[in-house]
């Protein structure tokens, strides 16, 4: 080995040894500071300031923040944490830096909405995040879909869920099922007229035979709901006027409250049982919420809607 080569090798070995030593020291320092609450700190809390400081390169910063969100959520989730203190601010930062970063809204809302330890358990924050996403990306129909689900399943607000699905269904390219969901949830929320309007729209605008059959079925059920409600009001009025319950429909016809015996959409007579209006064959109307015999549960619950409204099940 020449002297020059020996010197070069010595330098290389020394360099490698020093770098290895410095790595070991860093590991020791990391161990010492492993309990430091670094994860729960937003160094610059204002998204607007960070955006200004990015000098126009905010897209890359947003990607880095989104990666931090994923890592933060992953670590907390793994540790079965009860609190996700900086999840919402991190997501706000990410989406302010890049308002078009759709995965941040879609996955971020799931992270926020799920109950601890699966997520932050803050569905209201999830709804706020997705609403922000919709403001920035009004043409992204999947965000309305996400918002609808948050209102429906997490916040139990069928009216707002229906509104979200309805708004999303108007976006070009939105899945037809969005309208189905909007109509189904409007019915569940008690807004029968809205549901009738939307199901009629679906019936008139689709060529899909399954979807049409489902729409017809839904409309029949909504008609039953509406008719039972009206008939029950007449029965109650008769009771108030005469002081006793009607024994049959003939009593209401004789008193001028009805013109003839009422029939349901399948031409079976509505039943009058102890002053309550009921359908004769409830199995023909799987989605009705009124006119069911005592003891029959409401079938039009959210899970049921989901199961029957998916395109494959229609």
């Amino acid at each position: 080995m020449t002297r020059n080569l020996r010197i070069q090798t010595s330098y290389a070995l020394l360099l490698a040894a020093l770098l290895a030593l410095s790595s070991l020291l860093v590991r020791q320092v990391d161990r010492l500071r492993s309990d430091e609450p670094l994860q729960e700190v937003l160094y610059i809390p204002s998204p607007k300031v960070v955006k200004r400081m990015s000098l126009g390169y905010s897209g890359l910063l947003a990607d880095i923040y989104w990666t931090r969100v994923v890592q933060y959520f992953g670590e907390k989730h793994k540790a079965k944490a009860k609190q996700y203190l900086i999840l919402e601010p991190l997501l706000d930062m990410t989406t302010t830096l890049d308002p078009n970063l759709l995965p941040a809204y879609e996955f971020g809302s799931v992270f926020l909405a799920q109950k601890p330890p699966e997520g932050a358990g803050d569905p209201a924050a999830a709804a706020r995040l997705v609403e922000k996403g919709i403001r920035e990306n009004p043409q992204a129909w999947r965000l309305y879909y996400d918002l609808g689900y948050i209102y429906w399943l997490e916040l139990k607000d069928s009216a707002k869920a229906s509104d979200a699905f309805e708004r999303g269904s108007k976006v070009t390219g939105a899945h037809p099922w969005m309208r189905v969901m909007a109509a189904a949830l409007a019915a569940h929320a008690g807004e029968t007229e809205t549901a009738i309007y939307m199901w009629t729209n679906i019936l008139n605008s689709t060529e899909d035979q399954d979807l049409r059959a489902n729409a017809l079925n839904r409309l029949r059920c909504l008609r039953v709901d509406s008719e039972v409600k009206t008939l029950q009001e007449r029965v109650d009025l008769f009771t108030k006027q005469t002081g006793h319950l009607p024994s049959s429909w003939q009593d209401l016809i004789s008193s001028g409250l009805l013109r003839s015996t009422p029939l349901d959409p399948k031409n079976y007579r509505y039943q009058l049982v102890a002053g309550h209006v009921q359908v004769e064959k409830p199995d023909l109307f799987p989605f009705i919420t009124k006119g069911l015999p005592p003891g029959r549960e409401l079938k039009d619950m959210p899970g049921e809607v989901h199961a029957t409204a998916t395109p494959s099940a229609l």
Partner: protein
Amino acid sequence: MIGRLWAIAFNTFREAVRDRVLYNLILFALLIVGASVLFGQISLDINRIVLINLGLTAISLFGIVIAIFIGIGLVSKEIDKRTLYTVLAARPVRRWEFIAGKFFGLVMTLTVNALLMSVGFFAAVLYVSHGLGRSDLSLVTAIYFILLEFVLITALALLFSTFSTPIFSSIFAFAIFAVGTFAEDMRGFAQMAHGFTRWVMTGAAYLVPNFASLNVIGQVAHSVRVEPRLILLNTLYVVVYTAAVLTASVWIFERRNLK
């Protein structure tokens, strides 16, 4: 005249290559490949977006740093090394030709550098996306805008180089680049002011280079099309603004006593 301009420009390019400027390409390649693999593993659903953001940001920032650090020395280095006297005294080169030649030489260096990076960048996009579509044309527009940024910053660095030391020139150039990214905000603030302040602020806002509209990286990362009118207007703006800055550079350089 063209021959003299070309000679100075090509010499500037050759010097930059000799100064190992193109070594940044290796760093760029490592960055792109490393980031593609890393973000694919630790992030969620943003592989392509992060590649585009990172690739274009790197092309832009690397170029701007090179433009500033080489640009600030283009004139002052020649003065320090006393090679300028040889060029201007012994050869039939006018001062404005010297400035223009230096400018074109550095722009050529940056263009070659950016084009080589772009080849690697598109290869990475092709790999991640399994193909290139019509919407990817907006990536070409983004790279074109980055080249326009280089033209502006090179002219500005050259301007500072004609009257200041390299350290101060680099500070000025970075500062004006930072201020230029706030150009749109400045115009917004100016609108809110009243009276004399509004006049001064509006003047300043239009005087600083408008880097803000040249950055469409965030837009193209989401396959949003860039308006053809914006391409035309940005091109015209950069041509006019650069001509103004070069005129100022030549004016200052003509007045300098180099003896």
